[in-house]
C-alpha cells in the first residue's frame, strides 16, 4: 500500500476492494417533503471517469439530488443502484461528500483526518502515510496541529476535501464547495479536485459557477424544477444547450 501512496502522491485509489461501485444509476427517483414534490422522477446514469457538474437555478433540487444519491436522504419513490445493486455499508464506504459549509470537528487539522480514517477502518500503520499525502496535496502540512476551526474559510474547505480524499473514495460528491470563497481559494480547491480526478476519483459537483463548470466538468446535468432538463457533454452544453431553460441560465437570465 505504501508503494501506491508514493506512486500516486496524494491519494490511494480504491484498490483494496475489487470491482467498481460505478455506474451509479437513479431510476424514477422521487422525493417529496411537506406535500411538495421536490425531485420529480429523475433517471440518470453516472459513469466513472468524467467530472459531472450538476447545474441549475436555485431551488431546482441540485443539493437534494446529491443527498439522495449519497444516501443521506431516503427517496420517496424510485431506486438508486450502484453497479446494479442497492447501497449497503460497503458501497457507502466507497463514497464521500463535501458540503457547502465545511463541517470540521473541534479538533486539530490532523485529528480531523485521523478521525475519518479511523471511522473507515483504515489500518493504523497506513494512516500516517495517507495523512501526510493529503495534507501535502491540500498544502496544509504547516497547519497540521492547528485547531481546525481557526483556519480561514478556504483552508477549512481544503481540509474538508482533504479529509474526504484521505478515505480514497471512488466517488466524491461536492455541494458548491467554493460558493463563498475567494478566487485564490477556489483555484487551490479546483487544483485539488483535478488531482483527485487524475487519480481516478469520480467527481459529482453541484455548482452555480458557470466558469467553474467549464473549467472542471466533462459532463453537465442541468436541473430545473426537480427534473433533469438535460444531460450532455460539457462541450456541447456550453456551445449550444438543448433546453430553453439551460440556454436562459447560460445567458444569465432568470430561470423560473
Amino acid at each position, binding site marked *: 500500500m505504501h508503494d501506491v501512496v508514493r506512486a500516486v502522491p496524494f491519494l490511494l485509489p480504491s484498490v483494496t476492494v475489487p470491482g467498481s461501485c460505478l455506474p451509479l444509476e437513479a431510476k424514477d427517483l422521487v422525493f417529496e417533503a411537506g406535500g411538495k414534490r421536490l425531485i420529480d422522477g429523475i433517471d440518470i446514469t453516472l459513469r466513472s471517469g468524467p467530472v459531472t457538474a450538476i447545474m441549475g437555478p436555485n431551488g431546482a433540487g441540485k443539493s437534494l439530488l446529491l*443527498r439522495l444519491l*449519497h444516501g*443521506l436522504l431516503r427517496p420517496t419513490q424510485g431506486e438508486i443502484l450502484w453497479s446494479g445493486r442497492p447501497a449497503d*455499508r460497503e458501497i*457507502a*464506504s466507497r*463514497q*464521500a*461528500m463535501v*458540503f457547502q459549509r465545511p*463541517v470540521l*470537528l*473541534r*479538533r486539530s487539522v490532523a485529528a480531523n483526518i485521523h*478521525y*475519518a480514517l479511523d*471511522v*473507515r477502518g483504515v489500518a493504523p500503520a497506513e494512516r500516517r502515510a495517507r495523512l501526510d499525502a493529503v495534507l501535502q496535496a491540500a498544502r496544509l502540512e504547516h497547519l497540521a496541529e492547528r*485547531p*481546525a*476551526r*481557526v483556519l480561514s474559510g478556504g483552508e477549512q474547505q481544503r481540509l474538508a476535501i482533504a479529509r474526504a480524499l484521505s*478515505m480514497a473514495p471512488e466517488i466524491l460528491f461536492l455541494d458548491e464547495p467554493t460558493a463563498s470563497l475567494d478566487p485564490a481559494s477556489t483555484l487551490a480547491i479546483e487544483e485539488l479536485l483535478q488531482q483527485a480526478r487524475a487519480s481516478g476519483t469520480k467527481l459529482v459537483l453541484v455548482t452555480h459557477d458557470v466558469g467553474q463548470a467549464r473549467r472542471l466538468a466533462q459532463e453537465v446535468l442541468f436541473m430545473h424544477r426537480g427534473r433533469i432538463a438535460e444531460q450532455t457533454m460539457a462541450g456541447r452544453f456550453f456551445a449550444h444547450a438543448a433546453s430553453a431553460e439551460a440556454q436562459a441560465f447560460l445567458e444569465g437570465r432568470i430561470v423560473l
Partner: protein
Amino acid sequence: MQDFAGAFRLAVELITSGDTTLVDIVVLSMRVSLTAVVAACLFGLPIGAAIAVARFPGRGAVIVLLNSLMGLPPVAIGLLLYMILSNAGPLGVMGLLYTPAAMIIAQAVLVTPIIAALTRQVVEDLNTEYDEQLRSLGVKPARAVATLLWDGRYSLLTVALAGFGRAIAEVGAVIIVGGNIAHVTRVMTTAIALETSKGDLALALALGIILVGLSILVNSGVMAFKATAVRAAYA
C-alpha cells in the same frame, strides 16, 4: 437580636484560623458533591446525548419528563431514598443510611436529570451541525454519541458546573439520608441549618461565606477554561 457585625467578625476568625470543625465540614461537602456530580455525569452525559441523537416514538414526552425531573424537590428524593435505605427498606441490609455514601446517592439522583437534560440540549444543537457529515463518513450511532460528547466537552463542562451548583447547595435530601451527624455526615448546608436554629450564627455565617466563595471560585475557573477553548475555536 444578634449582633450581625459580631457574628461576621467571628466567622472571619473561624475561616482564617482554619478551625478543624469548619474544615471537616467543608472537606466532606466537597467530597460528597464532587463524587455525586462525577457519578451523575457518568449516567447523565450518555443518556442526554443518546436522547439528543435518537429518533423514536414518544421522544417528545421523554424530553418533557427529563426537563421536569430537573426540578425534583430534594426533600422528596431524600424521603424516597430514606425509605429504600432504612433497615426496613429493600436496600436496608447495605447499612448505607446516615453515611456519606447515602448522601452521594441522593445528590447524584438529584443531579443526573439536570446533567442529562442540559446535555440533551447541548448535544442536539451540535448534532444539527454534525449530523450529515457524520452520516456521510459512515459513523455508527454509538460512535456519533461519543464524538458529540467529546466535541461538546467545553459546553458540557458548564453543564457539570450547573449540576455541582445544585449538589453543593442542596440541603433537603442530605439532611434526611445523612442525618447531619457531626464529623460523619455534616456538610455545609446541613450545618448552616442546624447552627442557625441553635443560634450560633458565626459558624453558620462562616460556612455561608465559604459556600458563596467556592461557588464564585468554581465558576470563574470554568469561565477561564472556556475562554481558552473559545480562543482555540473549540467551544
